[in-house]
Protein backbone atom coordinates (compact mmCIF):
# COMPACT_ATOMS: atom_id res chain seq x y z
CA UNK A 1 0.00 0.00 0.00
CA UNK A 2 1.56 3.31 -1.03
CA UNK A 3 0.95 6.77 0.39
CA UNK A 4 -1.13 7.93 -2.61
CA UNK A 5 -3.60 5.04 -2.10
CA UNK A 6 -3.95 5.97 1.58
CA UNK A 7 -4.55 9.65 0.73
CA UNK A 8 -7.16 8.68 -1.90
CA UNK A 9 -8.88 6.36 0.59
CA UNK A 10 -8.97 8.99 3.36
CA UNK A 11 -10.37 11.58 0.95
CA UNK A 12 -13.00 9.07 -0.25
CA UNK A 13 -14.11 8.50 3.36
CA UNK A 14 -14.05 12.25 4.00
CA UNK A 15 -16.45 12.85 1.10
CA UNK A 16 -18.66 9.95 2.26
CA UNK A 17 -18.87 11.58 5.71
CA UNK A 18 -21.28 14.09 4.11
CA UNK A 19 -23.86 11.29 4.12
CA UNK A 20 -24.04 11.81 7.90
CA UNK A 21 -23.93 15.62 7.89
CA UNK A 22 -21.79 18.58 6.86
CA UNK A 23 -18.60 18.48 8.95
CA UNK A 24 -15.03 19.87 8.99
CA UNK A 25 -13.61 16.68 7.43
CA UNK A 26 -15.96 17.01 4.45
CA UNK A 27 -15.21 20.73 4.18
CA UNK A 28 -11.49 19.97 4.06
CA UNK A 29 -11.92 17.34 1.33
CA UNK A 30 -14.25 19.64 -0.61
CA UNK A 31 -11.76 22.50 -0.56
CA UNK A 32 -8.86 20.21 -1.52
CA UNK A 33 -10.91 18.86 -4.43
CA UNK A 34 -11.84 22.35 -5.59
CA UNK A 35 -8.34 23.75 -5.26
CA UNK A 36 -6.63 20.82 -6.93
CA UNK A 37 -9.15 20.69 -9.78
CA UNK A 38 -8.89 24.42 -10.51
CA UNK A 39 -5.08 24.21 -10.43
CA UNK A 40 -5.18 21.17 -12.71
CA UNK A 41 -7.44 22.88 -15.24
CA UNK A 42 -5.26 26.00 -15.24
CA UNK A 43 -2.21 23.90 -16.08
CA UNK A 44 -4.12 21.93 -18.73
CA UNK A 45 -5.36 25.16 -20.32
CA UNK A 46 -1.85 26.59 -20.44
CA UNK A 47 -0.20 23.44 -21.80
CA UNK A 48 -2.99 22.29 -24.18
CA UNK A 49 -4.43 25.59 -25.35
CA UNK A 50 -2.41 28.73 -24.68
CA UNK A 51 1.03 27.38 -25.61
CA UNK A 52 0.21 25.21 -28.67
CA UNK A 53 -2.67 27.31 -30.00
CA UNK A 54 -1.44 30.84 -29.28
CA UNK A 55 2.17 31.20 -28.14
CA UNK A 56 3.74 28.83 -30.70
CA UNK A 57 1.74 29.96 -33.77
CA UNK A 58 2.16 33.64 -32.88
CA UNK A 59 5.72 33.88 -31.56
CA UNK A 60 7.42 30.84 -33.10
CA UNK A 61 5.65 30.42 -36.45
CA UNK A 62 5.03 34.16 -36.82
CA UNK A 63 1.37 33.79 -37.84
CA UNK A 64 0.13 37.29 -37.09
CA UNK A 65 -3.55 36.35 -37.44
CA UNK A 66 -3.27 34.92 -33.93
CA UNK A 67 -3.02 38.47 -32.58
CA UNK A 68 -6.83 38.65 -32.89
CA UNK A 69 -7.60 35.78 -30.47
CA UNK A 70 -4.82 37.07 -28.20
CA UNK A 71 -6.49 40.48 -28.03
CA UNK A 72 -9.89 38.87 -27.43
CA UNK A 73 -8.39 36.85 -24.59
CA UNK A 74 -6.88 39.99 -23.07
CA UNK A 75 -10.26 41.74 -23.46
CA UNK A 76 -11.81 38.89 -21.46
CA UNK A 77 -9.29 39.42 -18.67
CA UNK A 78 -10.33 43.06 -18.44
CA UNK A 79 -13.40 41.88 -16.53
CA UNK A 80 -11.36 42.19 -13.36
CA UNK A 81 -10.98 45.95 -13.85
CA UNK A 82 -13.87 48.28 -13.08
CA UNK A 83 -13.00 50.83 -15.74
CA UNK A 84 -12.64 48.49 -18.73
CA UNK A 85 -14.80 45.51 -17.75
CA UNK A 86 -17.35 46.44 -20.45
CA UNK A 87 -14.76 45.54 -23.13
CA UNK A 88 -15.09 41.88 -22.10
CA UNK A 89 -18.56 41.89 -23.70
CA UNK A 90 -16.93 41.80 -27.14
CA UNK A 91 -15.35 38.32 -26.75
CA UNK A 92 -18.45 37.13 -24.86
CA UNK A 93 -20.69 38.21 -27.74
CA UNK A 94 -18.35 36.48 -30.16
CA UNK A 95 -18.39 33.24 -28.15
CA UNK A 96 -22.18 33.18 -27.93
CA UNK A 97 -22.71 34.20 -31.56
CA UNK A 98 -20.23 31.76 -33.04
CA UNK A 99 -21.25 29.05 -30.59
CA UNK A 100 -24.93 29.37 -31.42
CA UNK A 101 -24.15 29.53 -35.13
CA UNK A 102 -22.26 26.26 -34.92
CA UNK A 103 -24.61 24.58 -32.46
CA UNK A 104 -27.95 25.28 -34.18
CA UNK A 105 -27.27 23.45 -37.48
CA UNK A 106 -25.64 20.61 -35.54
CA UNK A 107 -28.71 20.45 -33.29
CA UNK A 108 -30.98 20.48 -36.31
CA UNK A 109 -28.99 17.64 -37.85
CA UNK A 110 -28.63 15.38 -34.81
CA UNK A 111 -31.83 16.09 -32.90
CA UNK A 112 -34.32 16.65 -35.68
CA UNK A 113 -33.43 15.40 -39.16
CA UNK A 114 -31.59 12.25 -38.06
CA UNK A 115 -34.36 11.47 -35.54
CA UNK A 116 -37.04 11.96 -38.18
CA UNK A 117 -35.29 9.56 -40.53
CA UNK A 118 -34.88 7.00 -37.74
CA UNK A 119 -38.63 7.20 -37.03
CA UNK A 120 -39.74 6.66 -40.63
CA UNK A 121 -40.11 2.94 -40.08
CA UNK A 122 -42.25 0.54 -42.11
CA UNK A 123 -45.47 -0.26 -40.27
CA UNK A 124 -44.71 -3.94 -40.56
CA UNK A 125 -44.42 -4.96 -36.91
CA UNK A 126 -45.77 -3.97 -33.50
CA UNK A 127 -42.47 -2.50 -32.37
CA UNK A 128 -42.32 0.00 -35.24
CA UNK A 129 -45.98 0.93 -34.82
CA UNK A 130 -45.47 1.59 -31.09
CA UNK A 131 -42.40 3.75 -31.83
CA UNK A 132 -44.31 5.91 -34.31
CA UNK A 133 -47.35 6.26 -32.05
CA UNK A 134 -45.08 7.17 -29.13
CA UNK A 135 -43.19 9.82 -31.10
CA UNK A 136 -46.38 11.40 -32.46
CA UNK A 137 -48.15 11.42 -29.09
CA UNK A 138 -45.10 12.94 -27.37
CA UNK A 139 -45.03 15.62 -30.10
CA UNK A 140 -48.68 16.35 -29.30
CA UNK A 141 -47.83 16.66 -25.58
CA UNK A 142 -45.34 19.41 -26.44
CA UNK A 143 -47.93 21.54 -28.19
CA UNK A 144 -48.09 24.79 -26.27
CA UNK A 145 -50.62 26.80 -28.25
CA UNK A 146 -53.59 24.49 -27.82
CA UNK A 147 -55.45 23.25 -24.76
CA UNK A 148 -54.99 19.58 -23.98
CA UNK A 149 -58.67 18.64 -24.21
CA UNK A 150 -60.72 15.95 -25.95
CA UNK A 151 -58.91 13.64 -28.37
CA UNK A 152 -55.97 16.01 -28.40
CA UNK A 153 -55.74 15.79 -24.62
CA UNK A 154 -55.98 11.99 -24.65
CA UNK A 155 -53.15 11.82 -27.18
CA UNK A 156 -51.06 14.24 -25.09
CA UNK A 157 -51.74 12.09 -22.02
CA UNK A 158 -50.54 9.03 -23.90
CA UNK A 159 -47.44 11.05 -24.76
CA UNK A 160 -46.67 11.81 -21.11
CA UNK A 161 -47.15 8.10 -20.26
CA UNK A 162 -44.63 7.17 -22.93
CA UNK A 163 -42.24 9.76 -21.51
CA UNK A 164 -42.65 8.39 -18.00
CA UNK A 165 -42.00 4.83 -19.20
CA UNK A 166 -38.80 6.12 -20.80
CA UNK A 167 -37.76 8.02 -17.67
CA UNK A 168 -38.46 4.99 -15.48
CA UNK A 169 -36.34 2.68 -17.59
CA UNK A 170 -33.57 5.28 -17.82
CA UNK A 171 -33.65 5.74 -14.06
CA UNK A 172 -33.33 2.00 -13.39
CA UNK A 173 -30.56 1.60 -15.94
CA UNK A 174 -28.57 4.55 -14.60
CA UNK A 175 -29.00 3.51 -10.97
CA UNK A 176 -27.47 0.15 -11.89
CA UNK A 177 -24.49 1.98 -13.40
CA UNK A 178 -24.12 4.12 -10.25
CA UNK A 179 -24.20 1.01 -8.06
CA UNK A 180 -21.34 -0.39 -10.11
CA UNK A 181 -19.42 2.83 -9.36
CA UNK A 182 -20.10 2.33 -5.64
CA UNK A 183 -18.91 -1.26 -5.89
CA UNK A 184 -15.74 -0.02 -7.57
CA UNK A 185 -15.13 2.42 -4.71
CA UNK A 186 -15.75 -0.25 -2.06
CA UNK A 187 -13.36 -2.57 -3.89
CA UNK A 188 -10.78 0.22 -3.83
CA UNK A 189 -11.20 0.75 -0.07
CA UNK A 190 -11.31 -2.91 0.92
CA UNK A 191 -8.97 -4.22 -1.73
CA UNK A 192 -6.38 -1.67 -2.88
CA UNK A 193 -6.22 0.13 0.47
CA UNK A 194 -6.91 -2.37 3.25
CA UNK A 195 -6.17 -5.54 1.30
CA UNK A 196 -9.13 -7.35 2.90
CA UNK A 197 -10.54 -8.53 -0.42
CA UNK A 198 -8.78 -9.44 -3.63
Amino acid at each position, binding site marked *: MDISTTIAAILTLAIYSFLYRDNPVYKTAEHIL*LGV*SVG*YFVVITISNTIIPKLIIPLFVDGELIYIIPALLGIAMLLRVTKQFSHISRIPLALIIGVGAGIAIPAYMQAHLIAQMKATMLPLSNISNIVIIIAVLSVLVY*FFFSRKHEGAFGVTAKAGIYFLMIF*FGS*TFGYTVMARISLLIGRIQFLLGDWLGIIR
Partner: protein
Amino acid sequence: MTDKVLYIHKPFLILLILTLIPFSAQAAIDTYDTPNDGGNSITVTWGGEVIAQSRDKFTSLDIQRQKVAESAGWETAAVLPVTDSVFVDDSVKDNIPYKYRIVFSAPEGEALIFESEPVKSSPQFFNTKRLNVLIGVIICCVILFYYIYESRKGKKFYLRPIGGLQAIDDAVGRATEMGKPILYSAGRGKMQRVATIASMNVLSSVATKTAEYNTPLIFPNSEPVVAAVAQEVVYEAYLKAGHPDRYNPDDVFYLTDSQFGYAAAVDGIMVRRKPATNLFIGTFEAESLILAETGNSIGAIQIAGTDSTIQLAFFIVACDYFLIGEEYFAASGYLSKDPMVLGSLKGQDWLKIIVGGAIILGAVLETAGIGFFSKLFGIG
Protein backbone atom coordinates in the same frame (compact mmCIF):
# COMPACT_ATOMS: atom_id res chain seq x y z
CA MET B 1 -6.14 9.64 -62.93
CA THR B 2 -3.18 7.50 -63.97
CA ASP B 3 -1.30 5.59 -65.06
CA LYS B 4 2.00 3.97 -64.18
CA VAL B 5 2.72 0.44 -63.07
CA LEU B 6 5.84 -1.61 -62.46
CA TYR B 7 6.75 -5.24 -61.89
CA ILE B 8 10.14 -5.12 -60.19
CA HIS B 9 12.42 -6.85 -57.73
CA LYS B 10 13.56 -4.93 -54.67
CA PRO B 11 17.29 -4.64 -55.51
CA PHE B 12 16.37 -2.74 -58.65
CA LEU B 13 13.55 -0.78 -57.11
CA ILE B 14 15.12 2.68 -57.08
CA LEU B 15 16.52 2.36 -60.55
CA LEU B 16 13.33 1.07 -62.06
CA ILE B 17 11.10 3.70 -60.43
CA LEU B 18 12.71 6.15 -62.82
CA THR B 19 11.49 4.15 -65.80
CA LEU B 20 7.89 3.50 -64.90
CA ILE B 21 5.93 1.67 -67.55
CA PRO B 22 2.40 2.95 -68.17
CA PHE B 23 -0.47 0.48 -67.97
CA SER B 24 -3.31 2.92 -67.75
CA ALA B 25 -5.72 0.67 -69.57
CA GLN B 26 -5.37 -2.12 -67.03
CA ALA B 27 -4.83 -0.32 -63.71
CA ALA B 28 -5.59 3.07 -62.25
CA ILE B 29 -4.76 5.15 -59.23
CA ASP B 30 -6.94 8.16 -58.69
CA THR B 31 -6.26 10.96 -56.23
CA TYR B 32 -8.55 13.87 -55.46
CA ASP B 33 -9.29 16.46 -52.81
CA THR B 34 -11.73 14.80 -50.39
CA PRO B 35 -15.10 16.45 -51.15
CA ASN B 36 -17.37 18.15 -48.58
CA ASP B 37 -14.73 18.55 -45.90
CA GLY B 38 -12.84 21.25 -44.06
CA GLY B 39 -9.59 20.59 -45.93
CA ASN B 40 -6.39 18.77 -44.99
CA SER B 41 -7.58 15.60 -46.67
CA ILE B 42 -6.83 13.78 -49.95
CA THR B 43 -8.57 10.60 -51.07
CA VAL B 44 -6.63 7.93 -52.94
CA THR B 45 -8.45 5.15 -54.80
CA TRP B 46 -7.07 2.39 -56.95
CA GLY B 47 -8.45 -0.44 -59.01
CA GLY B 48 -8.41 -2.01 -62.44
CA GLU B 49 -7.53 -5.29 -64.05
CA VAL B 50 -3.85 -5.47 -63.12
CA ILE B 51 -4.52 -4.77 -59.44
CA ALA B 52 -7.38 -7.26 -59.34
CA GLN B 53 -5.17 -9.98 -60.82
CA SER B 54 -2.25 -9.13 -58.55
CA ARG B 55 -4.05 -9.14 -55.21
CA ASP B 56 -3.51 -12.87 -54.69
CA LYS B 57 0.19 -12.56 -55.47
CA PHE B 58 1.10 -9.75 -53.06
CA THR B 59 0.97 -9.68 -49.26
CA SER B 60 1.70 -6.06 -48.42
CA LEU B 61 0.29 -2.73 -49.55
CA ASP B 62 2.03 0.57 -48.73
CA ILE B 63 0.57 3.98 -49.50
CA GLN B 64 3.39 6.46 -49.97
CA ARG B 65 3.30 10.20 -50.56
CA GLN B 66 5.70 12.92 -51.59
CA LYS B 67 5.57 16.72 -51.45
CA VAL B 68 6.14 17.69 -55.08
CA ALA B 69 7.55 21.16 -54.40
CA GLU B 70 10.23 19.96 -52.01
CA SER B 71 11.29 17.01 -54.21
CA ALA B 72 11.53 15.16 -50.92
CA GLY B 73 11.70 11.39 -50.65
CA TRP B 74 8.66 9.18 -50.39
CA GLU B 75 7.16 8.72 -46.94
CA THR B 76 4.79 5.97 -45.91
CA ALA B 77 1.32 7.38 -45.30
CA ALA B 78 -0.30 4.06 -44.42
CA VAL B 79 0.11 0.29 -44.56
CA LEU B 80 -3.14 -1.39 -45.59
CA PRO B 81 -4.47 -4.87 -46.37
CA VAL B 82 -3.96 -5.71 -50.06
CA THR B 83 -7.71 -6.04 -50.51
CA ASP B 84 -8.30 -2.34 -49.75
CA SER B 85 -9.00 0.05 -52.59
CA VAL B 86 -9.48 3.41 -50.84
CA PHE B 87 -7.33 5.48 -48.51
CA VAL B 88 -8.23 8.87 -47.03
CA ASP B 89 -5.12 10.79 -46.01
CA ASP B 90 -6.16 13.26 -43.30
CA SER B 91 -2.66 14.41 -42.45
CA VAL B 92 -1.85 16.61 -45.45
CA LYS B 93 -1.59 20.40 -45.57
CA ASP B 94 -3.89 22.47 -47.77
CA ASN B 95 -2.72 23.96 -51.08
CA ILE B 96 0.48 21.91 -51.20
CA PRO B 97 0.79 19.48 -54.16
CA TYR B 98 1.34 15.87 -53.18
CA LYS B 99 2.05 12.80 -55.30
CA TYR B 100 0.96 9.38 -54.14
CA ARG B 101 2.01 5.89 -55.04
CA ILE B 102 0.73 2.55 -53.95
CA VAL B 103 3.26 -0.24 -53.56
CA PHE B 104 2.13 -3.86 -53.61
CA SER B 105 4.96 -6.13 -52.47
CA ALA B 106 5.54 -9.84 -51.89
CA PRO B 107 7.92 -11.55 -49.42
CA GLU B 108 10.10 -12.77 -52.34
CA GLY B 109 10.86 -9.17 -53.20
CA GLU B 110 8.57 -8.71 -56.16
CA ALA B 111 6.77 -5.37 -56.13
CA LEU B 112 4.14 -3.53 -58.13
CA ILE B 113 4.03 0.28 -58.01
CA PHE B 114 1.44 2.77 -59.22
CA GLU B 115 2.08 6.50 -59.08
CA SER B 116 -0.43 9.34 -59.23
CA GLU B 117 -0.42 12.82 -60.66
CA PRO B 118 0.06 15.71 -58.18
CA VAL B 119 -3.01 16.69 -56.15
CA LYS B 120 -3.81 19.44 -53.62
CA SER B 121 -6.30 19.53 -50.77
CA SER B 122 -8.50 22.49 -49.90
CA PRO B 123 -11.53 23.16 -47.69
CA GLN B 124 -15.01 23.34 -49.23
CA PHE B 125 -17.34 26.22 -48.49
CA PHE B 126 -20.46 24.09 -48.41
CA ASN B 127 -21.06 20.43 -47.56
CA THR B 128 -23.55 19.36 -50.22
CA LYS B 129 -24.44 16.24 -48.23
CA ARG B 130 -26.01 18.51 -45.63
CA LEU B 131 -28.25 20.42 -47.99
CA ASN B 132 -31.25 18.98 -46.14
CA VAL B 133 -30.03 20.64 -42.93
CA LEU B 134 -29.91 24.01 -44.70
CA ILE B 135 -33.42 23.49 -46.07
CA GLY B 136 -34.61 22.51 -42.57
CA VAL B 137 -33.07 25.63 -41.05
CA ILE B 138 -34.65 27.83 -43.76
CA ILE B 139 -38.11 26.28 -43.20
CA CYS B 140 -37.77 26.79 -39.44
CA CYS B 141 -36.62 30.38 -39.87
CA VAL B 142 -39.44 31.30 -42.26
CA ILE B 143 -42.14 29.89 -39.95
CA LEU B 144 -40.61 31.35 -36.80
CA PHE B 145 -40.07 34.80 -38.35
CA TYR B 146 -43.65 34.85 -39.57
CA TYR B 147 -45.10 34.16 -36.12
CA ILE B 148 -42.66 36.51 -34.42
CA TYR B 149 -43.77 39.19 -36.89
CA GLU B 150 -47.44 38.44 -36.12
CA SER B 151 -46.77 38.53 -32.39
CA ARG B 152 -44.94 41.85 -32.65
CA LYS B 153 -47.88 43.28 -34.57
CA GLY B 154 -49.94 42.57 -31.47
CA LYS B 155 -51.59 39.25 -32.24
CA LYS B 156 -52.24 37.27 -29.06
CA PHE B 157 -51.45 33.56 -28.92
CA TYR B 158 -52.88 31.13 -26.40
CA LEU B 159 -50.27 29.27 -24.36
CA ARG B 160 -51.30 26.37 -22.18
CA PRO B 161 -50.14 26.52 -18.55
CA ILE B 162 -47.01 24.60 -17.56
CA GLY B 163 -46.83 23.62 -13.88
CA GLY B 164 -43.09 23.93 -13.46
CA LEU B 165 -43.00 27.45 -14.84
CA GLN B 166 -45.91 28.72 -12.79
CA ALA B 167 -44.07 27.39 -9.73
CA ILE B 168 -41.05 29.64 -10.35
CA ASP B 169 -42.95 32.76 -9.25
CA ASP B 170 -44.17 30.97 -6.12
CA ALA B 171 -40.66 29.69 -5.39
CA VAL B 172 -39.16 33.19 -5.59
CA GLY B 173 -41.95 34.48 -3.34
CA ARG B 174 -41.33 31.69 -0.85
CA ALA B 175 -37.62 32.52 -0.62
CA THR B 176 -38.49 36.18 -0.05
CA GLU B 177 -40.93 35.35 2.73
CA MET B 178 -38.43 33.05 4.42
CA GLY B 179 -35.61 35.58 4.07
CA LYS B 180 -33.43 32.93 2.41
CA PRO B 181 -31.50 33.00 -0.85
CA ILE B 182 -32.30 31.28 -4.15
CA LEU B 183 -29.69 28.96 -5.62
CA TYR B 184 -29.50 28.78 -9.41
CA SER B 185 -27.36 26.27 -11.27
CA ALA B 186 -26.91 25.98 -15.04
CA GLY B 187 -25.06 22.69 -14.64
CA ARG B 188 -21.94 21.95 -16.59
CA GLY B 189 -22.78 22.99 -20.14
CA LYS B 190 -20.53 25.28 -22.14
CA MET B 191 -21.88 28.62 -23.29
CA GLN B 192 -22.24 27.37 -26.87
CA ARG B 193 -24.86 24.79 -25.87
CA VAL B 194 -28.45 25.60 -26.74
CA ALA B 195 -29.51 24.50 -23.24
CA THR B 196 -27.10 26.94 -21.60
CA ILE B 197 -28.29 29.80 -23.79
CA ALA B 198 -31.89 28.94 -22.82
CA SER B 199 -30.80 28.81 -19.18
CA MET B 200 -29.45 32.37 -19.41
CA ASN B 201 -32.88 33.51 -20.64
CA VAL B 202 -34.58 31.91 -17.63
CA LEU B 203 -31.88 33.36 -15.36
CA SER B 204 -32.68 36.83 -16.65
CA SER B 205 -36.37 36.45 -15.70
CA VAL B 206 -35.54 34.97 -12.29
CA ALA B 207 -32.95 37.68 -11.57
CA THR B 208 -35.49 40.39 -12.44
CA LYS B 209 -37.82 38.96 -9.80
CA THR B 210 -35.10 38.53 -7.17
CA ALA B 211 -34.04 42.15 -7.82
CA GLU B 212 -37.61 43.35 -7.25
CA TYR B 213 -38.02 41.29 -4.07
CA ASN B 214 -34.46 41.96 -2.85
CA THR B 215 -33.81 38.22 -2.51
CA PRO B 216 -30.19 37.03 -2.79
CA LEU B 217 -29.50 34.95 -5.91
CA ILE B 218 -26.55 32.55 -5.67
CA PHE B 219 -25.22 31.20 -8.95
CA PRO B 220 -22.16 28.90 -8.73
CA ASN B 221 -20.70 28.03 -12.16
CA SER B 222 -18.55 25.26 -13.51
CA GLU B 223 -17.53 27.16 -16.64
CA PRO B 224 -15.68 30.47 -16.58
CA VAL B 225 -17.32 31.81 -19.74
CA VAL B 226 -20.79 30.92 -18.45
CA ALA B 227 -19.90 32.67 -15.18
CA ALA B 228 -18.91 35.82 -17.08
CA VAL B 229 -22.11 35.75 -19.17
CA ALA B 230 -24.23 35.05 -16.07
CA GLN B 231 -22.71 38.06 -14.28
CA GLU B 232 -23.69 40.23 -17.22
CA VAL B 233 -27.19 38.74 -17.43
CA VAL B 234 -27.88 39.12 -13.71
CA TYR B 235 -26.52 42.67 -13.60
CA GLU B 236 -28.63 43.63 -16.64
CA ALA B 237 -31.71 42.15 -14.94
CA TYR B 238 -31.05 44.12 -11.74
CA LEU B 239 -30.52 47.23 -13.81
CA LYS B 240 -33.78 46.62 -15.70
CA ALA B 241 -35.62 46.12 -12.43
CA GLY B 242 -34.29 49.48 -11.23
CA HIS B 243 -32.15 48.05 -8.43
CA PRO B 244 -28.54 47.83 -9.64
CA ASP B 245 -27.41 48.53 -6.07
CA ARG B 246 -28.84 45.16 -4.99
CA TYR B 247 -26.62 43.22 -7.35
CA ASN B 248 -23.78 41.41 -5.61
CA PRO B 249 -21.16 40.19 -8.14
CA ASP B 250 -19.76 37.80 -5.52
CA ASP B 251 -22.98 35.77 -5.67
CA VAL B 252 -22.39 34.81 -9.33
CA PHE B 253 -19.05 33.06 -9.37
CA TYR B 254 -16.90 30.36 -10.93
CA LEU B 255 -16.10 27.23 -8.90
CA THR B 256 -14.32 24.58 -10.96
CA ASP B 257 -14.53 22.65 -14.22
CA SER B 258 -14.33 19.38 -12.31
CA GLN B 259 -17.70 17.61 -12.39
CA PHE B 260 -17.69 16.21 -8.88
CA GLY B 261 -15.66 19.10 -7.49
CA TYR B 262 -18.54 21.29 -8.64
CA ALA B 263 -21.13 18.92 -7.14
CA ALA B 264 -19.26 18.79 -3.81
CA ALA B 265 -18.95 22.57 -3.64
CA VAL B 266 -22.62 23.23 -4.55
CA ASP B 267 -23.67 20.67 -1.93
CA GLY B 268 -21.56 22.54 0.61
CA ILE B 269 -23.16 25.86 -0.37
CA MET B 270 -26.62 24.33 -0.01
CA VAL B 271 -26.10 22.95 3.48
CA ARG B 272 -24.36 26.10 4.71
CA ARG B 273 -26.47 28.88 3.15
CA LYS B 274 -29.71 26.83 3.14
CA PRO B 275 -31.47 28.35 0.10
CA ALA B 276 -35.27 28.24 0.16
CA THR B 277 -35.39 27.52 -3.58
CA ASN B 278 -33.09 25.59 -5.89
CA LEU B 279 -33.36 26.08 -9.63
CA PHE B 280 -31.45 23.54 -11.72
CA ILE B 281 -31.86 24.85 -15.24
CA GLY B 282 -29.27 23.84 -17.83
CA THR B 283 -27.10 20.93 -18.88
CA PHE B 284 -26.58 18.32 -16.20
CA GLU B 285 -24.73 15.04 -16.05
CA ALA B 286 -24.09 12.56 -13.25
CA GLU B 287 -24.06 15.33 -10.63
CA SER B 288 -27.81 15.91 -11.07
CA LEU B 289 -28.97 13.45 -8.41
CA ILE B 290 -26.24 14.52 -5.95
CA LEU B 291 -27.42 18.13 -6.20
CA ALA B 292 -31.14 17.37 -6.17
CA GLU B 293 -30.89 14.96 -3.21
CA THR B 294 -28.93 17.45 -1.13
CA GLY B 295 -31.43 20.17 -2.02
CA ASN B 296 -34.23 17.86 -0.97
CA SER B 297 -32.54 17.11 2.35
CA ILE B 298 -32.42 20.82 3.31
CA GLY B 299 -36.11 21.25 2.50
CA ALA B 300 -35.69 23.60 -0.45
CA ILE B 301 -38.40 23.77 -3.08
CA GLN B 302 -36.74 22.54 -6.26
CA ILE B 303 -37.49 23.19 -9.91
CA ALA B 304 -35.39 21.51 -12.59
CA GLY B 305 -35.20 21.69 -16.35
CA THR B 306 -32.66 20.14 -18.65
CA ASP B 307 -32.28 18.87 -22.19
CA SER B 308 -30.54 15.75 -20.92
CA THR B 309 -33.23 13.07 -20.97
CA ILE B 310 -31.20 10.73 -18.76
CA GLN B 311 -30.80 13.29 -15.99
CA LEU B 312 -34.45 14.32 -16.18
CA ALA B 313 -35.35 10.96 -14.65
CA PHE B 314 -33.37 11.88 -11.53
CA PHE B 315 -34.82 15.36 -11.35
CA ILE B 316 -38.34 13.93 -11.63
CA VAL B 317 -37.63 11.75 -8.60
CA ALA B 318 -35.92 14.37 -6.43
CA CYS B 319 -37.46 17.72 -7.42
CA ASP B 320 -40.86 19.28 -6.76
CA TYR B 321 -41.34 20.55 -10.31
CA PHE B 322 -39.60 19.78 -13.55
CA LEU B 323 -39.56 21.00 -17.11
CA ILE B 324 -39.45 18.24 -19.68
CA GLY B 325 -37.68 18.74 -22.97
CA GLU B 326 -39.16 21.62 -24.91
CA GLU B 327 -40.99 23.00 -21.87
CA TYR B 328 -37.55 24.06 -20.75
CA PHE B 329 -36.82 25.87 -24.01
CA ALA B 330 -40.25 27.52 -23.85
CA ALA B 331 -39.61 28.71 -20.30
CA SER B 332 -38.07 32.05 -21.15
CA GLY B 333 -41.08 32.97 -23.30
CA TYR B 334 -43.50 32.11 -20.53
CA LEU B 335 -41.57 33.99 -17.89
CA SER B 336 -40.69 37.11 -19.85
CA LYS B 337 -43.92 37.32 -21.91
CA ASP B 338 -41.65 38.66 -24.64
CA PRO B 339 -43.73 38.77 -27.87
CA MET B 340 -40.74 37.57 -29.85
CA VAL B 341 -40.41 34.40 -27.78
CA LEU B 342 -44.18 33.87 -27.58
CA GLY B 343 -44.43 34.11 -31.37
CA SER B 344 -41.60 31.63 -31.76
CA LEU B 345 -43.48 29.15 -29.53
CA LYS B 346 -46.48 29.31 -31.85
CA GLY B 347 -44.14 28.81 -34.81
CA GLN B 348 -42.57 25.78 -33.11
CA ASP B 349 -46.01 24.18 -32.82
CA TRP B 350 -46.41 24.46 -36.57
CA LEU B 351 -43.00 22.93 -37.02
CA LYS B 352 -44.15 19.99 -34.89
CA ILE B 353 -47.10 19.51 -37.22
CA ILE B 354 -44.72 19.45 -40.20
CA VAL B 355 -42.39 17.00 -38.43
CA GLY B 356 -45.30 14.73 -37.44
CA GLY B 357 -46.72 14.85 -40.97
CA ALA B 358 -43.34 14.01 -42.50
CA ILE B 359 -42.90 11.07 -40.13
CA ILE B 360 -46.35 9.68 -41.00
CA LEU B 361 -45.72 10.13 -44.74
CA GLY B 362 -42.27 8.55 -44.46
CA ALA B 363 -43.60 5.58 -42.51
CA VAL B 364 -46.44 4.99 -44.99
CA LEU B 365 -44.06 5.18 -47.97
CA GLU B 366 -41.58 2.86 -46.26
CA THR B 367 -44.40 0.39 -45.65
CA ALA B 368 -45.20 0.57 -49.37
CA GLY B 369 -41.56 -0.13 -50.15
CA ILE B 370 -40.84 3.42 -51.38
CA GLY B 371 -37.67 4.62 -49.70
CA PHE B 372 -36.83 7.85 -51.56
CA PHE B 373 -38.62 10.11 -49.06
CA SER B 374 -36.77 8.86 -45.98
CA LYS B 375 -33.51 9.10 -47.91
CA LEU B 376 -34.05 12.86 -48.17
CA PHE B 377 -33.40 12.96 -44.43
CA GLY B 378 -30.13 11.07 -44.66
CA ILE B 379 -27.03 12.95 -43.59
CA GLY B 380 -23.59 12.39 -45.02
